[in-house]
């Protein structure tokens, strides 16, 4: 896959070193992206402060298709939570959280909201904010 990508970018004869370099760059970018996302999500898990499980619904092509990213995000969230909890004096606290792929979440969510809005007759403007 990387070879064909390099060919597309104009490198007609990519060698082993080229693909290794590209692989390395992809690894770094994925790792950094996972850390940034994990920071954000860990913050929300701590903020919501649930005693039971915290479920996070995720949709989007990047997360669905990038299996390695899923593993890394899970790993980094676990570590950030442990780090922050021990900083706040709870070194043994383990928060339960689950990342769930919500396929076509945005579309089906809109369907649910439309159904609710119709049922509760919200669309008449009685409930403005």
């Amino acid at each position, binding site marked *: 896959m990387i070879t064909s990508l390099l060919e597309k970018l104009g490198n007609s004869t990519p060698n082993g070193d080229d693909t290794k370099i590209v692989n390395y760059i992809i690894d770094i970018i994925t790792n950094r992206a996972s850390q940034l996302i994990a920071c954000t999500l860990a913050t929300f898990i701590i903020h919501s402060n649930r005693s039971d499980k915290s479920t996070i*619904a995720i949709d989007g092509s990047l997360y669905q298709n990038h299996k390695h990213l899923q593993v890394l995000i899970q790993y980094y969230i676990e570590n950030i939570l442990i780090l922050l909890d021990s900083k706040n004096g709870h070194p043994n606290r383990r928060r339960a959280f689950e990342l*769930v792929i919500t396929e076509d979440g945005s579309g089906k969510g809109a369907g649910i909201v439309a159904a609710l809005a119709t049922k509760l007759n919200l669309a008449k403007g009685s409930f403005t904010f």
Partner: protein
Amino acid sequence: MAECITNFIKHHCQELASKIDLNNNQKVQATLPLGFTFSFPTHQHAINIGQIKGWTKNFDLPDAIGCDATQLLQHSLNRIGNQYNIQVVAILNDATGTMVKGAYADPTCIAGVILGTGSNVCYLEDIQNVSKWSTRDPCFRDIHSVLINTECGALGDNGCLDSIKTHFDSKLDFQTLFPGSFT
């Protein structure tokens, strides 16, 4: 582009209508309620009013800024005939939609996340922490939590993440349609 979207909607309306007719011999309901996912920042004034705040992700239609996206869609539907009497009853952000579906499947859901072309998070906040809502009239008394769309893709637009940004980031950002925003 507008024409392309219009044709797409037209095509799907017909497909949907034929499905309804096949599965259900009864008369089609008087109106078909439609929920609209709009993946851009909006000022939401009601469940069916979403004023476009600005564009992101290499989409730019400056004329539409400040317009109500629900009305724009409704007008377009009406313009193509709106044969099936589709009413746009709700507008919501894609992260919000994900959270709603997530919470429908699992009540312990605390946040909805989008990781695709852009990224966004929406979460459940205790209404006590939202002054705009908790201090309002008694009809909000029985409501305990509210969904907050953070638009956290814009985190760092004010420079607070500059310390972790590299020159590769700036180079990439410079080539986007809106340098300096949603990096």
